[in-house]
């Protein structure tokens, strides 16, 4: 790495300054990025008390020469760029020469480093600033102690240890995903929490996000000229209630960019419920000159020169990979005797467009995945299938229902006998069929009723939950606690809000640094997807004051619960279940609209239907 130089004044003013170190996690981010810029292949992080007491990062990168050590701590001193041109094409994570100086102003900082050519290592500490010889084999150790010791007011804004640690861990994960080949280790209060050997991208993603993610994800790799997108996107079955499994990297830098997020959402639009969040790890690489990283103090937003082009590129790449038929579902039928999934040879691959199944070789995950698919087939864009309601015996209905006249208008004229029969038909009528796993079709006196089954069920559950939460909702204890993988942050939220959760019928207890056991669930929701439900609730609860959340956010919490308890699209309902839904809707207050204000059912009268066929009266 070249020697460090003080930047020209003009350039300094062109570099966005800002709050670099608002919490331990932002310190960690800066220090980790420096290690990566130094070409490290092994990085070890140790955090004490959420990084507040101590945050130490050791790397095996190029190191800092003795004479450069004081400069490294000076404001606007960087070895990474020297001119505006450099800034425009910046390839390194750092470029402002600001991070270490900012950290040094709020914490006790010790920098120990040794360059490969030197015989010994040197150390500098602030406050103080004396250079002293030190022992270190290679690379750099950055030791940050007593963060905000000088500014106690700042310190008050820090959250609990688990929360701050959780944020640090988020940063650590992002770096891990951005640089799979770098060996990483994370120690929390003296205990090693993660140790990830350098690996190929797919393995690293499995290390960081779990097999649950990779098992439900598809790999993609698309290139168009100098722009390339690669990574993994989860199929909708894995979609999350919170945004925590969304990783987008631009030239190796984690970003939260509106344009990119929008492109992803659009690609998922047809197959994912609005309230759900897609899960993905995506890396976009392009000429650094085509993207401006200097628009946000934490470098978390970027600006593309060709915003529209990038949006279209990302959207199409994802839409394509998501639209491919489910290999699991297809192969189950095509190769019944085989237990493993055959490679998806059916879809002819585009030249620059490769895809592979991101499931590991061998039994468990695949079989599990296939079973999972069978229960949670997402809505695809294929033509709707009309599920016939066979076995819907008229005998099961009151006699009047069986004699339901097809044309109420004509029947009314036919006499009193039949109008009595009509009177027995409930307002929403009787179910005829289920359409595309989404709508229930029913016949009532006026004609055809179309019900959005998820929305209707969600509404009913919501009203019921509201009714029972006035008291204590009935909660079923689980024989086998459901173990839910959560992030450290979610874990902290769960602990903080244990009383609220219990009040709602969820008994949770941490069983590991990343796992919660769910020991009881509200009786009304026993059939919900429990991990999703719990994560969604934690998302609602996060950053809320624990004491009053039940009063202030009750309806939101209940809405989340209802949404997760409601029947999912593509569940085949038996005729009895459909009729039960219609009766529940009639009994439910405000059943005509879902929690989001959309209608839950519509009526198509015979007259309207006739008009479709140009059958004037």
């Amino acid at each position, binding site marked *: 790495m070249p020697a460090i130089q003080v930047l020209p004044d003009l350039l300094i003013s062109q570099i966005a300054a800002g709050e670099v170190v608002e919490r331990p996690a932002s310190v960690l981010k800066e220090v980790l990025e420096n290690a990566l810029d130094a070409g490290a292949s092994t990085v070890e992080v140790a955090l004490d008390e959420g990084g507040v007491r101590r945050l130490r990062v050791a790397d095996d990168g190029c190191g800092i020469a003795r004479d450069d050590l004081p400069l490294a701590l000076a404001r606007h001193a960087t070895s990474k760029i020297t001119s505006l041109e450099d800034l425009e094409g910046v390839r390194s994570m750092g470029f402002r020469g600001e991070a270490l100086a900012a950290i040094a102003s709020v914490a006790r900082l010790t920098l120990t480093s040794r360059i490969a050519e030197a015989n010994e290592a040197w150390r500098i500490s602030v406050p103080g600033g004396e250079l002293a010889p030190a022992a270190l084999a290679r690379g750099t150790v950055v030791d940050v102690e007593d963060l905000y010791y000088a500014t106690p007011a700042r310190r008050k804004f820090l959250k609990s240890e688990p929360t701050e640690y959780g944020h640090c861990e988020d940063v650590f994960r992002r770096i891990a995903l951005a640089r799979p080949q770098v060996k990483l280790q994370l120690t929390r209060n003296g205990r090693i929490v993660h140790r990830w050997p350098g690996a190929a991208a797919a393995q690293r993603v499995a290390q960081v996000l779990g097999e649950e993610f990779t098992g439900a994800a598809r790999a993609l790799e698309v290139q168009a000229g100098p722009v390339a997108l690669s990574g993994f996107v989860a199929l909708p079955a894995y979609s999350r209630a919170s945004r925590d499994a969304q990783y987008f990297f631009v030239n190796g830098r984690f970003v939260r960019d509106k344009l990119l997020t929008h492109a992803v959402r659009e690609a998922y639009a047809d197959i994912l419920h609005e309230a759900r969040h897609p899960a993905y790890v995506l890396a976009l690489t392009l000429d650094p000159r085509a993207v401006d990283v200097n628009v946000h103090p934490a470098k978390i937003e970027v600006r593309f020169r060709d915003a529209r082009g990038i949006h279209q590129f990302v959207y199409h790449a994802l839409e394509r990979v998501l639209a491919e038929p489910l290999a699991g*579902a297809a192969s189950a*039928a095509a190769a*019944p005797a085989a*237990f493993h999934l055959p490679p998806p040879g059916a879809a002819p691959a585009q030249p620059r467009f490769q895809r592979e199944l991101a499931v590991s070789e061998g039994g468990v995950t695949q079989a599990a995945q296939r079973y999972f698919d069978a*229960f949670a087939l997402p809505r695809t864009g294929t033509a709707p299938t009309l599920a016939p309601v066979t076995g819907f015996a008229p005998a099961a209905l009151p006699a009047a229902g069986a004699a339901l006249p097809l044309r109420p208008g004509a029947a009314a004229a036919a006499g009193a006998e039949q109008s009595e029969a009509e009177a027995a038909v409930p307002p929403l009528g009787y179910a005829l069929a289920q359409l595309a796993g989404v709508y229930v079709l029913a016949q009532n006196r006026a004609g055809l009723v179309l019900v959005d089954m998820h929305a209707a069920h969600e509404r009913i559950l919501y009203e019921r939950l509201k009714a029972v939460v006035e008291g204590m909702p*009935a909660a079923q*204890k689980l*024989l086998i606690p459901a173990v839910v993988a959560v992030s450290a942050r979610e874990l902290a939220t769960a602990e903080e809000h244990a009383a609220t959760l219990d009040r709602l019928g969820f008994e949770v207890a941490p069983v590991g640094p990343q796992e919660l056991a769910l020991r009881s669930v509200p*009786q*009304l929701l026993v059939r919900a997807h429990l991990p999703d439900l719990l994560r969604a609730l934690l998302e609602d609860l996060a950053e809320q004051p624990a004491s009053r959340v039940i009063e202030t956010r009750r309806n939101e919490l209940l809405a989340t619960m209802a949404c997760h308890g409601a029947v999912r699209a593509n569940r085949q309902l038996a005729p009895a279940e459909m009729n039960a839904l219609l009766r529940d809707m009639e009994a439910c207050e405000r059943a005509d609209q879902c929690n989001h204000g959309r209608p839950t059912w519509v009526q198509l009268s015979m007259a309207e239907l006739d008009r479709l066929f140009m059958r004037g009266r």
Partner: protein
Amino acid sequence: MLLIKAPRNQLLQPLQAVAGIVEKKHTLPILSNVVVERAGEMLTLLASDSEIQIRSTTTAGLDQTNAAITVSARKLQDILRTLPENVDVTLDADERRLTVRAGKSRFTLQILPAEEFPRMRGGEGEPVEIQLKQNEFRSQLGLVQYAMAQADIRYYLNGMLMSVAGGQLRMVATDGHRLAYCSQPAQTPEPGIEVILPRKTVLELYRLLSDGDAPLTMRVWPSQVQFLFNEIELTSKLIDGKFPDYNRVIPPNHPKLLQLARAELAPALQRAAILTAEKLRGVRLVLAPGSLKLLSINTEQEEAQEELEVAYDGEGLDIGFNVTYLIDVLTHVDAENFDLRLNDANSSALFTLPGNDNFKYVVMPMRI
């Protein structure tokens, strides 16, 4: 090509044995068909839903040339079912159609080539073979089968654990709220095996096995299992997953013991169930010296109270349950008396049979 000429029942019975698993709608259309295959004097019928396959054979009469076709299982079954009992039926196939003749009735049905029907051929390598008796196996299934989960996302609960090891045949089923366990002495292989049978396979076996003590052969491969009994061969995939450790779930020493007669408890629960809140099904068990009360209340505040006399003089207890789970064990287990063991309002309830260590049923409580 004459496939078979036989009395209607001789054909209908094996057809009904195999056609139960045919799905109404399957992504692979040929799976709504049944394979009808003639080889020598035998006629084989075979159906599959790609997870389970059932094969059944019957004698076909005079030796004819070999032939095989597939035809709609539902239509063939409906035709045979509505024909008179003892009429002789012939099945005759040409290149494109199957003709069914009986008395003065005649039907021609579309066929699809049998080679296109995807068959399961048993697993790879040598299976572990286990000999059992049909009635014993079936009654054991009956003791646990109702506790299986249905369409649970924890796919391994949508089935039944079967372990054949250490001289015991064990079956365990759970839906996460309650668990049924049953064990019987059996001849077991060395080393033993432990597999999860899919729900549909369990229900199908329960339907097809007979009450007699005729033999049942089970062949187990790492990912498939085969049951051979009567004229039937049922092949099924196994669920590849980790079943919960039932030993940790069965409470070893709950202190409160109640001896209950089904004749009293079952009807009392059924009456209390009438006034439980519809979706919640909660019933309270209130235990005091000499008395067990069952209390329920629904959303309209209608209440039911039942009281049973019990020989109990320990501490009191007030605990809630989903009444369905309690009624389930009483209806599926054919016994006059049950032992019920309890601890506190947060712990499970354990049902066992007096003087019998082989059956256990655990139910988790419900906060009402």
